[in-house]
């Protein structure tokens, strides 16, 4: 009896979630496809040791520049390393840096955007001028400056400063969008009511405003994962991101790939496809999520 009772609250949300997923798939079929791509990528990134057929760092000079074959599906690179395995492991690098920098940048941007909208006045002016300054730099240039200034600080195999360098250009872009959404919320009667009831600024921001800007936040967060992956690949390609022999897609396109792309084009094709597919999937998913969550698109 107790088992049946305890099962009830669980089964209902599960059914709801399944329903929501089906509804999302029905309304946004491209979004569903992109979700599958992201899911596969996340699975590979989380458990690469079970997916990759070879160790991505293992050098095999007997296999230098090997063409795609049954043994090495995507061929081998200048060190005889299996490119398929390096792409699988590279998805971990892309996802860790993509998620972490997008989350940090989006979170800080959201806090600044809400604060800017809620307090208004001089705080708004100062925050927006700060945002203007950051927006004046192209995203790659700003990331380059930050990564060059901060150098490398590796914690548990992840370059924290690289994450920060990619997160910083995301901050102003999210702050601007979230501020716009928060300004709309800020003039809602329930916010006035909360103020009249004497609630603290903190409570109004976190209990009443933040939940109402979650949709744009989520959309920006998702879209900037793609941007962060691309930025990480660009910085690694330029020699400022992760360093060899770490498996990373951008890094796979630089170094020896530049020397051998004529005789071994698979060295650049497959990492290039991986980057494109990941960026495309996250962008598409972000767009689909926006269409699905934003009621204006449903009218």
């Amino acid at each position, binding site marked *: 009896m107790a088992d049946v009772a305890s099962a009830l609250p669980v089964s209902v949300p599960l059914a709801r979630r399944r329903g929501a997923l089906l509804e999302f798939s029905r309304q946004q079929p491209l979004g569903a496809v992109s979700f599958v791509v992201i899911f596969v990528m996340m699975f590979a990134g989380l458990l690469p040791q079970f997916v990759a057929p070879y160790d991505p*760092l*293992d*050098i095999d*000079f007997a296999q*230098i520049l090997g063409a795609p074959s049954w043994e090495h599906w995507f061929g081998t690179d*200048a*060190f*005889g390393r299996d490119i398929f395995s390096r792409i699988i492991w590279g998805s971990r690098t892309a996802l860790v840096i993509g998620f972490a920098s997008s989350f940090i940048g989006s979170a800080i941007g959201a806090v600044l955007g809400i604060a800017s909208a809620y307090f208004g006045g001089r705080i708004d002016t100062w925050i927006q001028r700060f945002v203007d300054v950051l927006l004046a730099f192209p995203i790659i240039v700003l990331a380059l400056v930050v990564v060059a200034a901060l150098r*490398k600080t*590796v914690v548990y*195999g992840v370059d924290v400063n690289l994450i920060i360098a990619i997160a910083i250009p995301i901050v102003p872009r999210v702050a601007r969008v979230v501020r716009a959404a928060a300004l709309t919320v800020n003039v809602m009667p329930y916010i006035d009511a909360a103020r009249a009831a004497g609630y603290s600024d903190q409570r109004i921001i976190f209990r009443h405003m933040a939940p109402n800007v979650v949709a744009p936040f989520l959309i920006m967060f998702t879209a900037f994962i793609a941007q962060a992956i691309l930025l990480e690949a660009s910085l690694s390609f330029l*020699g400022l991101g992760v*360093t*060899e*022999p*770490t498996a990373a897609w951008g890094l796979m396109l630089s*170094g*020896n790939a*530049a*020397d*051998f792309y*004529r005789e071994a084009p698979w060295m650049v094709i497959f990492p290039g496809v991986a980057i494109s597919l990941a960026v495309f999937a996250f962008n598409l998913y972000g767009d689909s999520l926006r269409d699905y969550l934003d009621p204006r698109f449903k009218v």
Partner: protein
Amino acid sequence: MLKFFLSLVGAVAFVAAGTGPGAEAQQPKRGGQFNFAISAETPHYDCHGSDTYATLHFSAPFYSTLLRYNLSKFPEVEGDLAKSWAVAPDQMAYTFKLHEGVRFHDGTTLTSADIKATYDRLRNPPQGVVSNRKATFADIDTIETPDANTVIFKMKAVNSSMMDHFASPWNCVYAAKDLATDPNWPKTHINGTGPFTFVEHVKGSYVAGKRNENYFKKGLPYLDSYRGIFTLQAAAMLNAMQGGQVLAEFRGVSPAERDRMVAAMGDQLRVEESSWTLNLIVAFNVEKKPFDDVRVRRALLMAIDRWGGSVGLSRISTLRSVGGIIRPGSPFATPEAELVKLPGFSKDIAKSRAEAKRLLAEAGVPNLKFVLWNRNLAMPYTPAGIFLVDQWRRIGVEVEHVQSDTAPYLAALRAGNYVVSIDFSNLFNDDPTLSLTKYLSTTKNPLNLSRANDAEIDKLYEQQLREGDVEKRKALIRALEKRLFDQAYQQPLLWWHRIVLTHKTVMGWKMSPSHNLGADLAEVWLNQ
């Protein structure tokens, strides 16, 4: 006899070189601006305190040296500022007569006092000055200047390598008055007697020079001006060369880069190849734990499959030959049959790695982790780093590979802020003393970045330096090498192979086994 051997090696080294730019018998043309690439930017301008070609490719056109190598007859020595010289029969004194009327770029006349000030700084640098040549000139007792154009070096002891040391390209001659102003003046200023005068250094971009109209070698240089453009990315350098923005890069490129450029430029490109007096070294900072334990150091060296690595890396990088502390193939080099008996050179890599694991376990660090400090130069530092990480993973060692630009890389090495690094031995000839100096105790030579002090190595170094018999000297060098590898302070990884690309229009530049030589551009001209 030694000179004959060295000449023979030099000749053999050029067999693959094809027709050099100096070989075409044409009348040199004057004029033009020569743009060439320098693939690293010097941390400072001071030749005495540097060990990277980046400094020489930057500074050499502005300076002269007492002697230099005749690259057409390498390793024959010829005069630069010295018009003539005499060696005392007992080799205890070297007398140099200087060219008259040589002027520094600021207009002052060069005298023997400038030579004395320069060599005093080299052999006994004042407080706060770094001289990487301190050890090589340690045998000089006094420097006398009987008149303005004569300088006499009196020795404490016979040194069979002195003429090579005098011909070193690193001994840029500075003005005594500049050094009196500030002993570190040459680090940030240029005032030499070389074929070009300094125009400007735009950091991160280029160094420019123009013809020294008062150069003491009449008719030289041929060029009006030059610009050394810093192209840190090899791909950018190759694109610039293909596009004609730069006409040469004198350090060297990889086999793949050569093939790409030959395919792209055909007969517009000149390719010259030679073995290289340069090797990469695996160095352990013996002041840091657990690398103060010889078992740990030796285990790491024993895990490296140099023989297999040389086969693979020579296809994709400038790394090629397996060798000990003397360049393989040169007269004093350790033969392969002897080399394979030394730790780190065994051809039975499985057995060697098993022993390495045992040593690590015995030292109490079976799961060793450390940072490998490396230079951020794609060729060949990056492939070497990738290779080492792979080799050490095979004995269960986890390595984080960190690469840094030249200036911070060198600064960290010099300050001892590393645990394991890829260092380099940048030589300019095959003289054993020059090669061995790197491994002297760090108190005697700051270039020993392992920071090891070993009296036995110092003693063997001293003995080989004074030994006149070639076979006995070889035996002493072998003993030193064995001691060094047994203690595993540092060890050559692989020796390099030099491939230089120049546009066919670049004439008068001479290929050599060292990228430190021939950097003054005095005889370079453009056939346009």
